[in-house]
C-alpha cells in the first residue's frame, strides 16, 4: 500500500481524469460515486505533492478535487445536503470518467495497430519531367504577403483560462490559513473563514477541503447544528498542530 502511494506520487499524469482513472483502476474498482470518494485522499495527496504544477494545469486538478471533496463530505458529514448543481457536478464527473476510460482504452488499441500493417501512397509522381508552370498570379509581393499572414497566425503563447485560475487558492495555502486562524480563535465559523457568499465557489470548496483534511488529522472538531447551517469549528488540542 505504502509503495503504491509513493508510485502514484512520482508518476506523471497528463490530467486529472487520467490520474483519477489510474487511482481507481489501481484499487481494482469500477467507476462509481463510491470508488471516487475512496480515492479522494490519494488524489489530493497527489496535488499536494505537485505544488509546482503550472497554474493552468493545477486549476484543472483542483476543480476535479473540489468535486471529490463534495463526494467525500457526504460520507464524513451525513447531515450535509448537496444542492442539485452539486449532485450534477458529481454525476458529470462520473460520466466524464466513464467516457474517458473508453477512449483511453481504445487509444491503447490504436497505439498497437499504428504502423503495424501500413499502406503506402505513391512516394512521388515524377513520371514526367517537371514543366515550369507558375500560376498567373505568382509574384514576389503575393508570396511575401503569404508568408506575412503565416507569421501572423503562428501559435502564440496561449492565455491561461484566467477565470478559472484567478481565484483558485492552493490547497496548502488554504490549510495554513485555516490552521493559523484556529490557533488564534480556537473556534471559528466555517462561514466566516471561507467567505461563503462573498468568495468564489471554488474557494469555498477548497476551504471545505482543508477543513476535512484537518478533521481527518484530528486537529479540528466540526459541528453543524442545522442543515445548510453554519459549520462550527473548534481546535481539539490547544498545542500547536504539527501539520506536515
Amino acid at each position, binding site marked *: 500500500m505504502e509503495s503504491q502511494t509513493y508510485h502514484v506520487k512520482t508518476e506523471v499524469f497528463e490530467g486529472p481524469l487520467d490520474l483519477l482513472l489510474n487511482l481507481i483502476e489501481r484499487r481494482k474498482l469500477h467507476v462509481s460515486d463510491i470508488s471516487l470518494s475512496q480515492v479522494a485522499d490519494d488524489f489530493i495527496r497527489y496535488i499536494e505533492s505537485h505544488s509546482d504544477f503550472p497554474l493552468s494545469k493545477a486549476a484543472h486538478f483542483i476543480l476535479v478535487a473540489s468535486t471529490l471533496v463534495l463526494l467525500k463530505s457526504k460520507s464524513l458529514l451525513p447531515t450535509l445536503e448537496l444542492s442539485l448543481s452539486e449532485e450534477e457536478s458529481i454525476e458529470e464527473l462520473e460520466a466524464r470518467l466513464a467516457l*474517458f476510460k473508453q477512449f483511453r482504452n481504445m487509444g491503447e*488499441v*490504436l497505439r498497437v495497430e499504428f504502423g503495424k500493417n501500413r499502406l503506402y501512397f505513391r512516394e512521388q509522381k515524377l513520371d514526367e519531367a517537371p514543366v515550369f508552370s507558375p500560376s498567373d498570379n505568382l509574384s514576389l509581393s503575393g508570396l511575401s504577403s503569404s508568408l506575412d499572414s503565416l507569421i501572423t497566425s503562428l501559435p502564440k503563447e496561449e492565455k491561461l483560462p484566467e477565470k478559472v485560475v484567478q481565484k483558485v487558492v492552493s490547497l496548502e495555502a488554504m490549510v495554513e490559513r485555516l490552521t493559523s486562524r484556529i490557533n488564534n480563535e480556537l473556534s471559528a465559523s466555517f462561514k466566516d473563514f471561507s467567505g461563503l457568499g462573498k468568495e468564489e465557489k471554488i474557494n469555498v470548496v477548497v476551504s471545505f477541503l482543508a477543513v476535512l483534511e484537518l478533521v481527518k488529522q484530528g486537529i479540528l472538531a466540526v459541528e453543524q447544528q442545522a442543515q445548510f447551517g453554519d459549520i462550527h469549528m473548534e481546535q481539539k488540542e490547544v498545542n500547536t498542530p504539527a501539520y506536515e
Partner: protein
Amino acid sequence: MNNNVKLEALLFWKGEPVAKKELLRLLSFSKEELGEALVVLRETLSKRGTTLLEKGDEVSLVTAPECSTLIEELRKEELSKDLGRAGGETLAIILYKGPVTRAELDYIRGVNSAFILRNLLIRGLIERISNPNDQRSYLYRPTSELYAHLGITKKEELPEFKRFISELESFTKHQEEKDQEYASS
C-alpha cells in the same frame, strides 16, 4: 472504356487522396456512376498489389495490406513513431467520434489538447477544417494518411468498430436520459 478503369487511372496518377466531389467533376460521372465504379474497382483490386482507400468523402489508391512488410523493409525512412498515450486517446476520439472541436477534446480528456493536436497535424494524421456551426472554431478529423498508417481501407475496418460505436451510442443515450431526469426534477 469502363468507368472503373478511368477511375483507377486518375487515382493512380494523382497519387494522393481525391475528394469524391472532385472525382465527379474531373470524370464527369453521375453520383451513381461513381458509386458503382468504386464498388467495381475495390472488387477488381482485391487480389492486386494496390487497394482502394475510402475515408469519408475522399478516395485514394494505396499499396495492398499484404504488401506492407515488403515496402516497410525497402523504405529508408525511420519507422512510424509511437503515438504515445496522449496521441492514442486523442486519435481514438477523433476517429470514432469525429469531427470534433478542440473544446470537446479538452472536455473528454480533461486537459488542454493544443500540443497534441499540433503534433498530430504536423504528422499529417489529422486535419483541421472550419466548423460549419461556428466560424470561430475548427473541427478535427482523420486523414487518409491515418487510415493508411492503421492499415485500414474504410471506416468499418477500424479496430473493434461495431462494438465500440455501439458502446458509445448506448453511453450517449444513457447520458441523455439522465439529463432529462434532471431537467424534469
